[in-house]
């Protein structure tokens, strides 16, 4: 395609040419018309004249056609597999995805919830229902899960909500304060790295031979050394501004010290380098 900037002088040229044609009826005999390949018979038509003026510029080369094809794929992406995954009346269990969508085309109704990408999933086992609930919201469509196969949704607004316990009763185990824990052991030998654990019973009783011929306590016991020794850290109190000030001061001091050390090094370097 020609730029308009390039076209304007050509158009101007053409205009002068047509004017001269009108002013002089016997224009074709004039020598000034020799610019054209052949004399013009119809002076009012301008576009054929232009097309004849630009015979070569209209050609389409292969490179241009190829560009269009390259962009087409980005405009037509792959499908995102949205839509209903379970239809109305189908049996679902908790966590079962019912509908995938962009935005909230459907809202979670009874016994359903909505994920962070607006996916609707079941929170109870039951049968899927797609329904409207004008009392709750006049313009929203809901997806719910009904406990009974023939049940209907929505339930009336003033009816007690139907829920399921979904729990079983077992004998209560009283929590023991501290259980012996097992300890992980890693040993690297000729047959590769072996990860094993010291049994819970053995791990409790004092230092043992650990990998690397070390007699020491289990890792979890070392972690609890402070607790055994009765060392307690002062609990953090955000209103204790005196403690906060002291900590801040100590931090600032340390930072200043580090900076001064760093500064010495840097200055030496700087002197040497620059």
């Amino acid at each position: 395609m020609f730029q308009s900037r390039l076209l304007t002088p050509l158009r101007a040229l053409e205009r002068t040419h047509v004017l001269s044609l009108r002013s002089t009826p016997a224009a074709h005999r004039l020598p000034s018309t020799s610019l054209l390949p052949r004399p013009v018979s119809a002076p009012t038509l301008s576009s054929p004249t232009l097309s004849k003026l630009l015979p070569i510029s209209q050609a389409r080369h292969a490179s241009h056609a190829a560009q269009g094809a390259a962009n087409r794929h980005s405009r037509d992406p792959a499908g995102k597999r949205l839509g209903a995954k379970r239809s109305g009346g189908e049996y679902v269990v908790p966590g079962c995805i019912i509908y995938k969508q962009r935005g909230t085309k459907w809202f979670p109704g009874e016994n359903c919830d909505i994920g962070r990408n607006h996916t609707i999933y079941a929170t109870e086992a039951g049968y899927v229902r797609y329904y409207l609930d004008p009392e709750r919201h006049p313009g929203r469509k809901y997806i719910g899960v009904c406990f009974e196969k023939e049940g209907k949704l929505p339930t009336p607004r003033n009816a007690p909500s139907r829920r399921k316990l979904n729990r079983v009763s077992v004998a209560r185990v009283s929590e023991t304060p501290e259980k012996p824990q097992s300890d992980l052991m890693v040993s690297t030998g000729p047959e590769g790295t072996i990860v094993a654990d010291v049994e819970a019973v053995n791990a409790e009783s004092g230092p043992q031979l650990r990998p690397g011929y070390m007699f020491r306590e289990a890792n979890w016991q070392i972690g609890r050394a402070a607790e055994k020794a009765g060392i307690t850290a002062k609990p953090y109190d955000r209103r204790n501004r005196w403690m906060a000030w002291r900590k801040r001061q100590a931090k600032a001091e340390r930072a200043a010290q580090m900076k001064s050390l760093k500064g010495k090094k840097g200055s030496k370097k700087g002197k040497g380098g620059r």
Partner: protein
Amino acid sequence: MAHCERVSKPLLQCLRSTPTRGLPGLQSARAFHSTSVAREDAQVETKSQPFHKSPDPELVSSPRLERRLMRQGLAPVGSRRRRAALQNSPNVPFEQLPYQCFQEARNILQADRIEKLKDIERIRERIARYETLSPEQAGGKQVQNSKLGAWKEHLEKLKIQADINDPIVKKKFEDGQGDMSKPIYRFLADRKWREYRRKILVQRITQMKVIPDVLPHCDPVVDAKLYFGRGLIQPGDFVDSKASTTPPKLDVQMFEGGNKLVTIVVVDPDVPNMEKDGFDYRTHYLAVNVPLSATSTKVDLSKLSTESQVVLPWEPPVAQKGSPYHRLSLFILEQNNSQPLDFAAIKAKETERHNMSLRPLQTRYHLKPIGAHLFRNQWDDNTLEVMKQIGYPEADIELRRKRVEPLPYKRRNPSTMR
């Protein structure tokens, strides 16, 4: 109280309690005081103690001193901001304030009040005249009733409008010294309650589904506060099971005049039932014929009489380990026409705590819910102790989540996929 008395009261108050901390302002205030200088100075000298030793409830503004006052049993007056402002103010009564525009505005308000009082008198006379007429003379029983109702409503409105622009009324209400037997203070208290606390209550009872689960509908019109021991429980709070072994105390503020007889019920709709894989109701408390009025607000559930009021005494709520939290919903239900219910008959009939829902009770005795509250209960460290104390039958049982059988794996048919 006569109007002149009301007007002179702040003046007297001002004379009685001179601000000790408002020393710079006191100089300017002197010009307006009617008492002698000598008396003023003598008063100041007797209060030689520093302010932090004996803080004044009218002027204290630091939290520490407020707490000290509370421990002494004195409540600080009004808002903290107001008390802080008063420390530096001369505390001149409204009548003597030297602002001309303010005084003019007060005059206009006074004139308006006098006009309203005249209106009240007129309406009262009209009502009295109309009530003496026979229904035939008034044009039918229905017409008479509707006219009387409309006039009485208008009268109540006028009573409120007469006082609502009074700065002293506003001050008294904000200081918490309003007299709830007067319609204007009830109106102001109601408005304040509806601005925030009622909204919170309604939100909690609807979002936690108490409203469709326990009762189909409730429009709270009384402000109910719930205390366990001395702690105020916000609607929907979790209450420690040890704290809830003793029956709660209620502070029920009515916003209408007159006396009412109410029924107070505490229902738990979340008692797990393994057999039906659902939940049962349990009534933790039921008392009838509890008198309420705008001025007598305190109801201690443990101190109601067992002979004439308490049908089912308090049962401490406990939640088994692993069970979803229990919603303990308290409802205040107005009895029909505030007539007393037959206590003996109810006591004989309503003996079963378990699975007694509030809906049939409401229809049987024509009760109307006027107030609600809600607290929650769950398994905590003290629950086992409380269970043993009350002899809970299933104390050694724990609830675990039921395993959900996954859906059978469905093999996809690749030929139909494209």
